[in-house]
């Protein structure tokens, strides 16, 4: 029972990190960034190569934390690059066009990584298999605890950034009304680039953590997590940051219990079933505003 909760919290915190980027980008430019899951995959691969480079110098948790920062910077920049090249020129284009572009970006990232790294899954060079300790009946390791703590610190930092700083206020202003924000002197393009940086960096962090947690990565790993993160964002209320965190954790827990009930192979079906049920019953999510535009 408490093992299920623990597993749910762990996967849920990955979902939440990825969902945050999804939700931020959606909130600010109303774009479903299809390639977001692939940025997560990119983070995992950057982490893999950095860890392989570092393996002679340090290993274990300290190396992982260094690599986490490097991967976050790299994926953040990649996110900015994607926005600059593929999305910005289409800002005035119909939404369908931008969505299809996002599908194209997703393809390029997946098969670009496959070209470089190959199609076979890679074994992550660091494993979190320290001494397991019993805590309330669940077996977990100190490293796992640290990673979950890091995930929560990142989420908290993002929340503070968005709610308490000038830059965050500019983001919220654009989300509320892009035209008015522009008229009051906010550099809209720059703020959007920043949002892409933050969202992609969080996804990259989740990618490294997932690599370390599951132990293997492959070029299509971002596909399902992208779907799950979207599900989490919808459950929480898309465009709403606390909602995305809550939705991620809720989905992680739901999945964990669903798996406990029905067996692991139905996990994804269960998650997407949740998505459809939520879209039908409460499309605005737990914390979101009204999502139905017209009936």
């Amino acid at each position, binding site marked *: 029972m408490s093992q299920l909760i623990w597993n749910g919290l762990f996967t849920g915190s990955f979902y939440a990190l990825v969902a945050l980027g999804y939700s931020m980008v959606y909130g600010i430019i109303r774009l479903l960034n299809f390639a977001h899951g692939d940025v997560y995959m990119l983070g995992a691969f950057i982490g893999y190569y950095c860890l392989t480079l570092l393996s002679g110098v340090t290993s274990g948790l300290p190396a992982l934390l260094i690599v986490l920062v490097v991967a976050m910077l790299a994926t953040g920049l990649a996110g900015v690059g994607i926005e600059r090249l593929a999305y910005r020129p289409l800002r005035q284009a119909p939404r*369908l066009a931008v*969505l299809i572009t996002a599908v*194209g970006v997703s393809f390029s990232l997946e*098969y670009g990584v496959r*070209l470089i790294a190959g199609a076979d899954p890679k074994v992550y060079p660091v494993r979190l298999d320290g001494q397991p300790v019993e805590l309330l009946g669940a077996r977990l390791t100190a490293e796992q605890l640290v990673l979950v703590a890091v995930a929560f610190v990142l989420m908290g930092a993002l929340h503070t950034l968005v709610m308490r700083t000038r830059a965050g206020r500019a983001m919220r202003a654009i989300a509320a009304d892009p035209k008015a924000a522009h008229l009051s002197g906010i550099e809209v393009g720059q703020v959007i680039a920043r949002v892409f940086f933050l969202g992609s960096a969080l996804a990259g962090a989740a990618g490294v953590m997932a690599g370390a947690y599951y132990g293997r990565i492959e070029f299509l790993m971002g596909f399902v997590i992208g779907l799950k993160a979207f599900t989490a964002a919808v459950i929480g209320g898309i465009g709403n940051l606390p909602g995305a965190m809550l939705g991620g954790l809720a989905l992680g827990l739901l999945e964990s219990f669903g798996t406990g009930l029905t067996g692991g192979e139905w996990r994804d079906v269960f998650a997407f079933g949740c998505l*459809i049920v939520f879209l039908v019953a409460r*499309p605005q999510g737990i914390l979101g505003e009204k999502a139905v535009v017209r*009936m």
Partner: protein
Amino acid sequence: MKRALLAFAAVATLPVFTISPYVLNMAATAGIFVMLAAGLYIVVGYCGLLDLGFAAFFAIGAYTSGILATRFELPLVATLPAVLCATVLAGIVIGGPTLRLRSDYLAIVTLGFGEIVRVTATRLEITGGPTGIYGIPPLAADPVAFFYLVLVVTALALTGAARLGRSKLGRAWQYVREDEDAAEATGISTYRVKLAAYVLGSVWGGLAGVLFASQLSAISPASFTFLQSALVLVAVVLGAARNITGVILAAAFVAVTPELLRAFPDARYFLFGVLLVVVMLLRHRRRATA
């Protein structure tokens, strides 16, 4: 119309030049793909709804006919009514709730639906698990006869889609695509119109699935991945300057190119992705300056 007839006649003479089963098989594959693209064109091209899980309907058609034909030893033609029912039902179940929402939600839900169908087919016993179903009786055993069958069915499917596009319903679709609010304001029930497009598209996909099952005589979940959905979408987007002829050419191109690019399997999807982005950027830059 004249050009379409000419093209039809030109393709129909193919067996005069070669009866190599490889070439005919490839032509039939391209034909099935064109039919899939015609179905998706109804949804994406006419009505402007982004469907990212179109392979699900392809799979439902192929599995429904495959299961019925092998379990009850029916000829494949006899399974068509069941295939129609199954695809219409699936279209209503997925389109019904989601078409009321923002259109970009539909994209993700259809993507999730595509995965659900594939995973379910991999896990269930009746669908044969990961190995799938084999020993499906063909619609026509001879490659030349099957080629003509695919040609005729695809031509009918294309004609049907094009005529639908010019009908009253089709004009309503295009109205919804261009401006949903205005369409609603002029008295079009946009929800019903969208649902009709979605369900019709799924029927086209399901029927293409029957042809596919007949061609391969064996189907497995590996044929119905997101890649398949995405490739059909690529064909529709590349070809669709709002014109079904372009879709035919693009679909044939997308179906045949991977066969020709077999030597570089890694690069081809990467190139597809880049191409998709470049095409969208070019198309919309042109519109902005015009």
